[in-house]
């Protein structure tokens, strides 16, 4: 029996301790916003925050997530609602499937770096593939969110 804290809610889940966190989140916690894209950690669709760090949930055995704070897309509204609003406002998503992972990676970036440069964005976001090609708008959305969250903006 694994005890998992996802979006500040504790789930008691009885699964194989090797099961990747991704499938526990999707099939057992019923949170389907976190997506399967490759199963090998290279596309970023399954990205969640674990104790604040972005991780590929398809590679993390559930045993390694016990006792950690897991944040999925469903919990982002309590973490960075502005970013979600900007995402909608700039019409960033196309098919939307990779966007949960993109947003989680962006939340992690903005937590550590309130005013990221293009290079910072490249570094933080290059693990997330978007087959529709929304990169340009993701970049704009991160900059805009930083501007809105950054008090210096008002002085500009």
């Amino acid at each position: 029996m694994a005890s998992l804290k996802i979006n500040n809610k504790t789930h008691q889940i009885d699964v194989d301790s090797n099961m990747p966190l991704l499938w526990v989140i999707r099939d057992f916690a019923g949170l389907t916003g976190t997506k399967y894209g490759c199963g090998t950690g290279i596309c970023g669709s399954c990205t969640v925050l674990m104790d604040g760090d972005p991780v590929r949930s398809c590679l993390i055995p559930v045993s390694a997530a016990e006792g950690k704070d897991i944040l999925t897309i469903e919990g982002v509204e309590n973490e960075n609602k502005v970013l979600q609003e900007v995402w909608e406002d700039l019409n960033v998503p196309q098919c939307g499937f990779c966007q949960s992972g993109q947003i989680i990676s962006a939340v992690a970036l903005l937590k550590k770096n309130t005013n990221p440069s293009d290079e910072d964005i490249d570094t933080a976001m290059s693990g997330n593939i978007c087959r529709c090609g929304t990169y340009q708008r993701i970049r704009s959305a991160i900059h805009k969110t930083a501007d809105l969250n950054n008090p210096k903006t008002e002085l500009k």
Partner: protein
Amino acid sequence: MNPIQKVTRRSFIRSMGLASGGLLIACNFPSSDEKNQKRPFNGSTFEPNLFVHLKDNGDLVLIASRSEMGQGVRTSMTSIIADEMDADWNLVSIEQAIGHPKYGNQNTDGSRSVRTLYETMRKMGATARAMLISAAATKWQVDKSTLITNNHYVVNTANDKKIFYGDLVKEAAEVAVPENPLLKDVKDFKYIGKGLKSVDGAGFASGKPKYGMDIKLPDMKYAAMARCPVTFGTVKSFDKAKAMAIAGVTDVVEIPRVAKPFGPLGGVAVIATNTWAALKGKEALEIVWDHGDNKVYSSETYDKMITDNVHKKGKEIRNDGNVNKAFKNAEHVIESTFNLPHLVHAPMETPNATAWVKEDGTCEIWAPSQAPQTARDNVAEFLEIEKEMITINVTFLGGGFGRKSKPDYVVEAAAVSKAVKAPVQVVWTREDDIQHSYYHAVSAQYMKGGLDKDGNVTGWLHRVAYPSIASTFAPDSGYAAGFEFGQGLINIPYQIDNVRCENGKAPAHLRIGWFRSVINIIQSFSVNIFVDELAAKAGKDPLQFRLDLIGNDRVEESKSGYHFDSAKLKNVLKTVAKNANYGKDLPEGHGVGIAMHYSFFSYIASIIEVSVEDGKLKVHNIHSVIDCGTAVNTDTIKSQMQGAAIFGMSLAYYGKITAKEGVVEQSNYHDYQMLRMHQAPEVHVEIINNNDKPTGVGEPGVPPIAPAIINAIYNATGKRYYSLPLMDHGLV
């Protein structure tokens, strides 16, 4: 037969009162889609049909009959109805249609949703508006000549009285349907052309929309399939013991191949209580395969064979004048050979479907499908039940790009559900997706061109060989189909007296299918590069050379109703040159490349600036201009053009599927790579503003990208490349 299928060229609209206290309007108009752009062997021939549902509280539910896969179709289609209806967009909600012929053609492909349904949707909205006005006239006992509408209200201009649409539902249901409702003047559009935000944007940003894989049913099982590594190979024998030993695995069953265009490949299915157990079970299977006839397929020898086939005379496809004579009399003759590999769609969401073949003999399916009616037809054939017993629910699609036009994965889910008598979700792994797709064709092309002493093109020979999409549907002749030649081979936009096009043999050994932009990718590649080569040989500027080669202003009539207008092509070319500041001084090591292409009846030109430093390519910026007639949603069009540029860069950089002894050699995003954030340039898009009928948007942005990059590399370095992907040339 459904009565709607009997409607031929005659338009009709009908209305019916709803028990729930609403007004429902259904309508059906002839499609203006052209015959030779329709895909082959598609049984759907009836006309499009859409639904409006206005509730008595004013809520307006518009049904989206086409599938949402990122192209914004749920927003663009419904905004047209709402505009003509003068509806308040804030009161609109969208419902996704099930797959059913009553909605008309639902195939979401060919960049045709808005293109073919624009007029229908306008008339549907206008009809609703006219009926609401008549209803108000009846209610107020006034003449309707003084009545207008304003944002969900009917207003009497004589006395400024107004009434809410929702309060007119009962009366409107009694009104006779007008034959020819008045359409808005385009200057009065309030949603069309305004770049409305996606109706699904907030959902996408919060992880809420349900894609195929997000469907959960009570007692649903999960399945993973092992399929023969070689196309159409079969199971000889298998041992399920190790799979069954995995906790959560409940069944292992053999699923036979269904030898139809959209039949499942067959294999061994592992059924489990969760996805992970099914995937582990699949890995634990011990299967002996019979690889079958396609084990002869190795890309290395095959590519040589089709290249040989374009180096000799092929089947004549087009012949104007006399190319041999032109080459004989030419000042310069140049020849080039082009090779492009197979590609695979690799949408972020792999194929998957949830099927429930129920005890009562009915079947319900949830699938991310671009072709829900085709799915329904194929499931009905497989289960040998009436189509009316099958419900296909269309989920959001995590990308499609043509892969999800082929419902083999939907039939497969039905087969597994039938076998285990339970609702089952069949999930394809990324490896399954990349190794068992319907691939974009591998190709070889040969081109020969003649120039006179003034640098005019006097002769043009173009030979192509690629396994045909038709091979998926009929016995393979080894030759391509007419619709494939129409994608940039026989319909080049240039005025040249002597033109010959030929087709060389290329039998298929994989399932070949549509991929975003289809054969336009192949033929745009060679044509755009070859024109650049001719310009260089003629010593002319590549931009002016193209403008001259397009020739005089002319409109070429087409029975499709979409007439090629050379002035529009020249206009996008001139506009993109202006936007890119073509001719500007470039930094050392930089170069610019031009390409243009006419596809899905839209005109596109792109200019790309690159640099090559220490042998490594960087794309600095992309300018694209599109003329797609009326721009229904300007922001969506920009988004599609931006995405198309990235899609084109991905295939140019990395796109390569190869086979060895029939087995696809790539398996996941590590060896079938995608462009990533750090490589993505700014893509600047201009939409030519006009009120002509709308043409394609989703696909036409892709074909110019790869050749423009090649031409830019040439401009930067003097070196010309004739094949993709660029990673094979060490450039990326």
